């Protein structure tokens, strides 16, 4: 039952990822990416990570993708990528490179000795366990993240300011 659900969600994820890469229009690509992010949120739910599934939908599919769609609308690059590709032979290498990378990673996963799963039951992925971890073991990285977001905000304001 859960295997069937996994196969369906995985097919949706891979198909939407291919749609993002193949589609000419970047708006279509962005919508495909939203589908992909939603399917990954479903996979998080199947892995017992409820908090991350909610954060994925809110932060990624919500905030980040709105930013992307906004940028696409502002920059109107609908007519890009229509002319002849000046570096066509170079880009023909993309599929072999991607295929070799995939084979390498899968071979690594198959060949590596993975420790047997521990006997203890999987932890709950709710807000409580994540929050407890973030404010004890990961307190310093958590505070650094706030500094990083502040720096990004100031930097974006500086970059987006119209030069007088």
């Amino acid at each position, binding site marked *: 039952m859960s295997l069937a659900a*996994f196969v369906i969600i995985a097919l949706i994820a891979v198909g939407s990822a291919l749609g993002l890469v193949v589609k000419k229009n970047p708006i279509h690509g962005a919508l495909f990416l939203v589908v992909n992010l939603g399917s990954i949120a479903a996979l998080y739910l199947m892995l017992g990570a409820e908090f991350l599934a909610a954060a994925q939908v809110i932060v990624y599919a919500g905030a980040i993708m709105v930013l992307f769609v906004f940028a696409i609308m502002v*920059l109107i690059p609908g007519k890009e990528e229509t002319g002849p590709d000046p570096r066509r032979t170079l880009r023909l290498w993309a599929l072999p490179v991607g295929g070799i990378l995939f084979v390498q990673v899968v071979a690594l996963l198959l060949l590596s000795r993975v420790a047997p799963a521990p006997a203890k039951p999987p932890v709950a992925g709710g807000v409580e*366990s994540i929050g407890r971890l973030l404010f004890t*073991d*990961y307190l310093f990285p958590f505070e650094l993240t706030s500094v990083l977001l502040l720096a990004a905000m100031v930097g974006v304001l500086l970059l987006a300011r119209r030069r007088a």
Partner: protein
Amino acid sequence: MVPESYYLALSAALFAIGVVGVIIRRNPLVIFMSIELMLNAGNLAFVAFGHRLGSPDGQALVFFVMAVAAAEVAVGLAIIVAIFRLRRRLSIDDLSLMRW
């Protein structure tokens, strides 16, 4: 129960698709979205490993990756908009100023 190795294989496939997207596309916005795809593939691997080990540390790491990705997207899109203002067109092949 779905074995964790299936999730890892899916993660590898999504990452490879993202790499192909970064290489073949000429629009910097689509390249950015392919990078997001690769980040999500990494996140999925983190959660799958954390599920296997029975510890919430993997999920905490994904939380940090999400925060960094949000910052990265904001700065990257601002840079793309600034370049577009400068050049009035948007193709990654034009941006060879800092190439060796």
